[in-house]
């Protein structure tokens, strides 16, 4: 068993228990109002008469029903199922007895309450295990005390404590009241991974039943008595601000209660305060449809305060940056210039990708109720703590007076790391002096900014007369950040190597978009390596494995940011599972592998031509994320990543004219649809006992390249510029 020190002492425990208690009271008031996040009652256990709070994660009822608080926001990555699974494993309680509730923001008790960087499971693995193990230990101590024995005389399994040398048994529900008074242990024992009984199995989504019944779960569904609705109107173009508008006319429209301009400028904005427009027109009223009509009737004077950019100027900026732009980060090993001169073969290719929007299907929205001395915020946020901080700055109100509750979230992809819509809701609530729910239209959502940056990269490789890769360089520019990770693969595997990350300016606002930078870099680099392997006359998997072998045995330079064995491992696994190398008539195959967010993924795409159209028949996906918590849930998010990668490399783009986004809704902005998705995606995990890493992002990046490489085999055409559709290609 692993001994692990508990992070908390009695004092912090008591402090946080009290806070969590307060949170629960609010939780119950939700039950009465509109029921988002109310617990799904467990099947086999009666509803308790009394609950006992063991710690901030665990509450046990007298019937043995266990409530586990899930600390992090749920954006579809399924942490509301997998995080409580980890607690339940160490607590040793049957999953059927567990109900899950969303924990409110509580920085005193929980750490890292955010959904981003595929970090939820990775950062909370120990804390969740500790919470479960601590609870188990306290229950055991309570039973030992009751029976006049020591903890060593007892065992706990599946919610029942047994005497080792005797007949007595007691359930968690029966002893819970006594466990509350037990001192929190300073050290607890964790299970060995091989003894896990719940982790590694497949547990269904805890919200599944509510989702298929259409129950209120999302921010947009939240309602409160006396609540008004609000909409905003932002300037039509980046580089513009609002001067004034036909305020009186709008106020007199049916259903409109108020209309005004809000300014959400705050002092010392943080990274998650990024937003397109600080000053906005706000309209408040009773019904969404009436507000939508009023919004259409707005006549505003927009003032130009910056450049009105367009897609053509963006491309010019990128091309210029690649020649003479500011290098943000770089790496150089050996002498690439000299190596290219003596190389037998040299290949150079340019790749690019447009701005894209997140387009969570649930548009931005938030509930806020601001009073003179408090602010309550409820809605879909990936970063509740950042929201709390920004609202505190906006209202000049102490953080202690602000509460943030998280609803289930209709898609994240990085969009809801940014907190402006919650801040705007708070500004509107303050102005009207009452509770309000702010709703964005799809058009507001798509034209507000916070986009994935646009990128352009030049890759160059040199082979010697024996077709060994002797030189590799990459220069990548982005608006506003370059898409290059200088120490990632193939750094460490090539004698003469250089990488330059270059920035260029834009006033279009950008943000983290699922697998930031990797969402382009993987596609470019892995497509390029496919072409280099072809030039070398080598199998693309063998070619990569040779490079990993070099990085393992005789690494170049001082460091590189990947474990070459694990990287090679996923390629070997996908090779085996897909029977790579087998001659399948009419099947055209492409492969790619990528490492980001601490997880290794390799994918093989099988394309067939039907009526001269490429169809993705099957995707094979091999993953090394360490221990897999929820097997089928993990497969689901990987499948989603693959489809998202296909969709955004194939179909999606946002273009600009005079600062105005040219795509505003799904009629002009194309997202992947059912018929364009692969027929089948099979996911395989490398089995090991390494602490788990995340899955929200790593499935997407390699899909872009595996698709391009398979399309090349199927059509004879290479794809360099996203969306590939603009290069006259359609899948499905």
């Amino acid at each position, binding site marked *: 068993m692993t001994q692990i020190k508990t992070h908390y002492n009695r004092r912090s425990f008591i402090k946080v228990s009290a806070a969590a208690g307060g949170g629960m009271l609010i939780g119950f008031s939700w039950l009465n109002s509109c029921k988002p996040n109310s617990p799904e009652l467990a099947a086999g256990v009666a509803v308790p008469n009394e609950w006992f709070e063991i710690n901030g994660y665990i509450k046990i009822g007298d019937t043995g029903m266990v409530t586990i608080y899930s600390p992090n926001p749920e954006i579809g990555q399924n942490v509301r199922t997998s995080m409580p699974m980890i607690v339940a494993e160490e607590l040793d309680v049957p999953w059927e007895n567990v109900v899950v509730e969303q924990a409110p923001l509580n920085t005193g008790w929980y750490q890292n309450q955010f959904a981003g960087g595929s970090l939820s499971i990775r950062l909370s693995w120990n804390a969740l295990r500790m919470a479960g193990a601590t609870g188990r230990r306290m229950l055991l101590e309570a039973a030992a005390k009751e029976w006049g024995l020591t903890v060593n005389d007892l065992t706990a399994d599946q919610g029942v404590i047994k005497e080792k040398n005797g007949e007595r048994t007691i359930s968690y529900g029966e002893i819970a009241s006594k466990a509350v008074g037990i001192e929190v242990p300073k050290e607890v024992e964790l299970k060995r991974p091989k003894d896990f009984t719940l982790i590694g199995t497949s547990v269904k989504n805890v919200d599944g039943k509510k989702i298929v019944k259409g129950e209120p779960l999302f921010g947009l569904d939240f309602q409160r008595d006396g609540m008004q609705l609000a909409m905003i109107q932002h300037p039509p173009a980046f580089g513009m601000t609002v001067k004034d508008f036909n305020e009186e006319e709008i106020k007199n429209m049916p259903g409109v209660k108020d209309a005004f301009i809000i300014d959400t400028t705050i002092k010392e904005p943080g990274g998650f305060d990024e937003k397109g427009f600080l000053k906005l027109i706000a309209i408040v009223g009773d019904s969404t449809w009436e507000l939508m009509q009023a919004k259409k009737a707005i006549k505003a004077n927009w003032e130009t305060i910056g450049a009105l950019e367009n897609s053509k100027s963006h491309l010019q900026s990128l091309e210029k940056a690649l020649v003479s732009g500011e290098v943000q980060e770089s790496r150089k090993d050996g002498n690439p210039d000299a190596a290219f001169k003596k190389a037998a073969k040299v290949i150079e290719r340019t790749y690019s990708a447009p701005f894209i929007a997140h387009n969570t299907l649930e548009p931005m929205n938030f509930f806020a109720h601001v009073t003179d001395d408090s602010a309550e915020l409820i809605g879909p946020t990936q970063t509740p703590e950042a929201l709390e901080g920004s609202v505190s700055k906006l209202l000049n109100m102490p953080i202690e007076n602000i509460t943030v509750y998280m609803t289930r979230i209709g898609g994240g992809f990085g969009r809801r790391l940014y907190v402006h819509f919650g801040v705007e809701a708070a500004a509107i609530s303050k102005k009207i002096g009452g509770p309000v729910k702010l709703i964005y239209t799809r058009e507001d959502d798509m034209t507000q900014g916070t986009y994935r940056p646009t990128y352009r990269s030049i890759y160059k490789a040199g082979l010697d007369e024996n077709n060994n890769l002797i030189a590799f360089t990459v220069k990548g520019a982005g608006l506003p950040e370059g898409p290059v990770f200088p120490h990632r693969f193939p750094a460490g595997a090539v004698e003469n190597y250089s990488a330059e990350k270059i920035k260029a300016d834009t006033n279009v606002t950008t943000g983290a978009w699922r697998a930031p930078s990797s969402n382009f870099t993987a596609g470019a680099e892995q497509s390029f390596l496919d072409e280099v392997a072809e030039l070398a006359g080598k199998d693309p998997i063998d070619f990569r494995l040779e490079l990993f072998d070099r990085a393992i045995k005789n690494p170049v330079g001082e460091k590189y940011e990947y474990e070459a064995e694990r990287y090679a491992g996923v390629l070997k696994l996908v090779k085996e599972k897909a029977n790579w190398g087998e001659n399948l008539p009419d099947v055209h195959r492409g492969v790619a592998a990528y490492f980001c967010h601490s997880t290794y993924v390799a994918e093989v795409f099988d394309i067939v031509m039907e009526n001269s159209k490429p169809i993705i028949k099957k995707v094979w996906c091999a993953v090394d994320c360490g221990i897999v918590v929820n097997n089928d849930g993990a497969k689901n998010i990987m499948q989603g990543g693959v*489809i998202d990668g296909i969709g955004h490399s194939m179909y999606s783009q946002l273009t600009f004219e005079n600062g105005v986004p040219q795509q505003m809704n799904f009629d002009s902005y194309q997202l992947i649809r059912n018929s364009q998705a692969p027929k089948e995606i099979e996911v395989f995990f490398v089995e090991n006992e390494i602490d788990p890493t995340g899955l929200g992002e790593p499935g997407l990046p390699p899909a872009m390249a595996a698709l391009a490489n398979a399309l090349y085999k199927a059509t004879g055409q290479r794809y360099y510029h996203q969306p590939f559709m603009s290069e006259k290609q359609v899948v499905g």
Partner: protein
Amino acid sequence: MTTFNLNINGQDRQIEVDPSTPMLWVLRDHFQLVGTKYGCGIAQCGACTIHLGDAAVRSCQLPVSAVGDQAVTTIEGLSENGDHPVQKAWLEVDVPQCGYCQAGQIMSASALLKQNPSPSDEEIDSAMNGNICRCGTYTRIKKAIKTASNSEKV
């Protein structure tokens, strides 16, 4: 403002509202039936899919004045206890990621299966192409429709 008599999920309901108001907002704002979702407002994403009679329609483009005496069914009224074969198949296959689009997906799928109990892959593609799943659960949606198609009578 005009008064409309509607039949929603088997119940007679009355509402006074602007005739141009789409059913989406009548359901969400006036009847608190929020299972029907707003995604685009222009009938491109399918999140707002409901049944008008037996047909799947986009409620964001259906003015309340066009409903007349046709029966309206929303996700809340698809079954008594969430046990419609399509809902059961969705749970069995564990389709959802974020879950936001799934009510619309289920309404499209249940209308398809009512009309065509054994759809081919192409028929599924064509019936489901109007429903965007931003998380990319499409392979599971296809599998769940097959599962429901092979199960009891839809």
